[in-house]
């Protein structure tokens, strides 16, 4: 347990879910892309072996006592396993160079069994990271996996711009791709759930910043709902993280059935609380760029305080988080500040005067 806490993250989460007493607010900065920096590895060193990656997560947890470890299956996993050309940079996150599918008519030529754990060595490695973390610190801290939702998974196989156009010109072909991507995801979600891992489902390409609400309803919602059914049947939990502006789709997203919703900083926490706060717990949403990347320690403190002030009374509960993944060029000291501020402003019982909340 972190020296400044009175409860382990598991105890804290348990109390959160059952309405028990907590020492402080749950604090889950999305430490994914920056993980290697926190422990002084290069990104390639981190991803080169399950042992290294697990060591990075555990080192980070020992330092911060953050309330969840987020292991990265990632947003490109399905396309990668199917044969995308990916970059392999020394010290940053691999990106898609070329999608494996050039023409939707060639969909049947893809062998989706390549995405299963029997055939995808990278998935095997990531599952191994989960196992090591679970064994070493799993009795203290929840472990989650960041994995794509249906539309982003499809977009990892076929270029986004082409897919957007096809959604209008040949919608049945887009549905065929989504069908296969969704089925592949189901198997992978279950693999992680069987290891006791929380699903952190991200579907940025389905964000309201890219899709019209009608497109969301036709091309995302049915598949996302199916995936949530699969997660529940397997005994898992889905924390949905949505990037970008979801102010129009927020009710549809919640209706797909995830357990919690993590929002981007472009959506106001007060708005989310009023719209869906009575349906599920909310996570969010300290600005990862304006504040964590470009801000000072004082600005991080101010943002944490402001976010808690807006979210603390959300009917189904509130978890402090960053609005998106913290990128690797953020000063690690600002994560220190985030956690320090969580312990000051988020200490229970909340000091409303300190937070500037009027009774």
């Amino acid at each position, binding site marked *: 347990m972190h020296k400044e806490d009175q409860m382990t993250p598991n105890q804290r989460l348990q109390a959160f879910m059952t309405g028990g007493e907590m020492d402080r607010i749950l604090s889950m900065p999305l430490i994914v892309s920056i993980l290697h920096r926190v422990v002084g590895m290069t990104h390639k060193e981190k991803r080169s072996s399950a042992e290294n990656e697990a060591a990075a997560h555990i080192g980070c947890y020992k330092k911060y006592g953050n309330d969840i470890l987020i292991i990265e299956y990632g947003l490109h996993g399905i396309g990668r396993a199917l044969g995308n050309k990916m970059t392999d940079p020394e010290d940053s996150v691999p990106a898609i160079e070329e999608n494996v599918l050039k023409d939707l008519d060639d969909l049947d030529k893809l062998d989706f069994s390549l995405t299963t754990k029997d055939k995808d060595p990278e998935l095997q490695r990531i599952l191994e990271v989960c196992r090591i973390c679970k064994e070493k610190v799993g009795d203290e801290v929840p472990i989650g996996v960041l994995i794509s939702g249906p539309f982003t998974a499809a977009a990892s196989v076929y270029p986004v*711009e082409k897919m*957007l156009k096809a959604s209008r010109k040949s919608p049945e072909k887009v549905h065929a791709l989504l069908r296969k991507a969704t089925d592949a995801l189901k198997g992978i979600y279950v693999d992680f759930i069987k290891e006791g891992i929380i699903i952190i489902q991200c579907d940025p390409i389905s964000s309201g910043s*890219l899709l019209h609400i009608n497109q969301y309803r036709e091309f995302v919602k049915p598949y996302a709902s199916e995936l949530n059914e699969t997660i529940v049947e397997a005994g898992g939990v889905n924390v949905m993280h949505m990037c970008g502006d979801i102010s129009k789709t927020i009710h549809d997203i919640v209706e797909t059935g995830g357990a919690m919703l993590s929002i981007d900083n472009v959506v106001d926490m007060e708005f989310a609380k009023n719209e869906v706060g009575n349906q599920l717990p909310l996570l969010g949403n300290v600005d990862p760029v304006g504040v964590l990347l*470009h801000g000072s320690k004082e600005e991080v403190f101010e943002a944490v305080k402001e976010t808690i002030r807006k979210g603390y009374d959300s009917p189904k509960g509130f978890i402090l988080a960053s609005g998106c993944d913290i*990128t690797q060029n953020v000063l690690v000291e600002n994560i220190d500040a985030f956690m320090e501020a969580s312990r000051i402003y988020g200490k229970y019982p909340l000091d409303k005067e300190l937070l500037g909340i009027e009774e």
Partner: protein
Amino acid sequence: MSKTKEELLKLLSDSVFEMEEEEGVRELAQEYIDAGYDALEGITAGLVDGMNRAGQMYEEEEYFITDLLLCSDAMYAGLEVLQPHLPKKDLESEKVYKCVIGVVQGDTHDIGKNLVKIMLETAGFEMYDLGRDVPLKDFVDKAKEADADLICLSTLMTTTMPGMKTVVEMLKEEGMYGKVKVMVGGGPISQAYCNKIEASGYAANAVEAVNLAKVVVGMGIPA
């Protein structure tokens, strides 16, 4: 009965606005040329008019990104047919504003860049699209070579944002800063960041980018 010029211009504009199949737009553009009408007018009062209407609908949130992409496909299909019929002098008669555009090195997300390119092209800029993951020096080299008025830099990732600052600094070193304006955009970019790196302007979406581009280069303002 053959259609009048006005009817055909309206059809060209509608074919873009209503995202007709590319083949249909090509046929329509060919019909317009075969009738002996002016190619430049076919572009400006037909195709571009349709794209501008689409841009307006985008601003009013009636059209979305998918719609703009489909409209632009229709527009480019029509342009393929009409452009070869433009007399040379029309291209040289007035100042043509030139713009170099691309996604900065390290980033491959290019939907936003593509939309801005389409809308700037629609507004009459001559575009030099360097694509995505563009080495920073290429922006400066291309701007010099093409004698560009504007460089547009896009990125969705925070890790590649510093590249924008580097381009501004390179322009300063080359003595091109000020003469060549720099516009920045993309998910993590803000007006504050634009000010910090001393770029000429930031726009939140493709339609705003056009308005801003015209202002920073002084398009339409008599010299």
